């Protein structure tokens, strides 16, 4: 179960079966993490284990090239990320009933792109600090390009490894490979931001969570203006790091949303 072949790639997947909750059917939620230095483990203790304890079925996976998933040289555009996710849902048998997608940072961008491309697969979106519109592509490219230059030919990973700082060595080595030996930066540069028309097409309920000081708040506000069913929650005192910096409040918001997703819709009740 840990390794799933989908879209010709071996994905690292971790599923947390819902804890026993007699008489209550939970939601199924698939989590998408952020870029380059992130992987599925950032969700594990923060949201995934608590959600599973609340009776929800949780799927965590490492995005293409990240964590313990295979790292091919190409395919880091959002269209391929959507193909990866839909193939994975199929491989897991989760393409018969729509699921809630929970995306952090760039994972939220992929989640929203998936809801537009395959509305039949997505019951709801929870977007945590997702870059949606505005100059985020340029800003992110600046950051990633500087990091790539710093890492290119650097002996830092080897030096860290020899000092026994294995975790830091792994993290920088992964970042170096993604930034300097895959098409990730070019693929993000070729991406496009969402438009008001995109947001207006969303058919599922959307919850957007932002940090008060984040530069991504205007994008979330634009989403809330145009999407038919969007709630925005701004967490005070935080920037982009809502997941680690505001874990407790974020967890309450996300668990409330999943509980609402799990309740049967009034029009779905049959006699």
């Amino acid at each position, binding site marked *: 179960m840990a390794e799933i072949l989908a879209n010709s790639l071996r994905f690292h997947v971790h599923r947390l079966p819902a804890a026993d909750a007699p008489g209550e059917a939970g939601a199924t939620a698939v989590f998408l993490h952020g870029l380059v230095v992130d992987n599925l483990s950032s969700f594990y203790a923060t949201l995934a284990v608590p959600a599973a304890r609340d009776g929800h079925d949780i799927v965590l996976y490492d995005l293409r090239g990240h964590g*313990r998933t295979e790292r091919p040289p190409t395919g880091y555009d959002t269209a391929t990320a959507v193909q990866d996710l839909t193939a994975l849902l199929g491989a897991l048998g989760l393409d018969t009933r729509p699921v809630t997608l929970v995306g952090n940072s760039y994972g939220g961008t992929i989640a929203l792109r998936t809801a537009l491309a395959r509305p039949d697969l997505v019951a709801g979106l929870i977007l945590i600090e997702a870059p949606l519109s505005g100059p985020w592509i340029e800003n992110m490219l600046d950051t990633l390009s500087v990091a790539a230059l710093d890492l290119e030919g650097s002996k830092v990973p080897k030096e860290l490894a020899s000092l026994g700082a294995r975790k830091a060595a792994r993290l920088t080595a992964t970042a170096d490979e993604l930034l300097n030996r895959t098409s990730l930066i070019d693929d993000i540069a070729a991406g496009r931001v969402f438009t008001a028309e995109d947001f207006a097409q969303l058919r599922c309920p959307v919850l957007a969570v932002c940090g008060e000081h984040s530069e991504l708040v205007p994008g979330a506000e634009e989403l809330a203006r145009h999407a038919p069913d969007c709630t925005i929650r701004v967490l005070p005192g935080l920037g982009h790091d809502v997941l680690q910096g505001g874990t407790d409040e974020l967890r309450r918001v996300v668990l409330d949303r999943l509980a609402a997703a799990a309740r049967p819709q009034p029009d779905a009740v049959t006699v």
Partner: protein
Amino acid sequence: MTTDPTAMRILAEITAMLVQTVGDEFLLAEEVTFDTTFNEDLALESIEFVALAELLRQRYGAAADLISFLAEKDMEEILALTVGDLVAHISGTPVSAPAA
């Protein structure tokens, strides 16, 4: 050191899972005891703990009940656990303390 055969068996199984998860160039099986901590001693990455959790689920199934064991802990607290803490949870009984 405990001599409880169940705890010893689970320790050996978890050790094998750790070597499988981390790779034997980083972790030698003889380094792992009940007192070994995931973070301080093994420098286990969070993602490696999740991979270990997958192997535990495959081996021990729902009986391992990691969700209630870990539900109140953040990742730092999880990685501060010892292998013995995990063995004790899975065996359902505390690993006996070293003889005085």
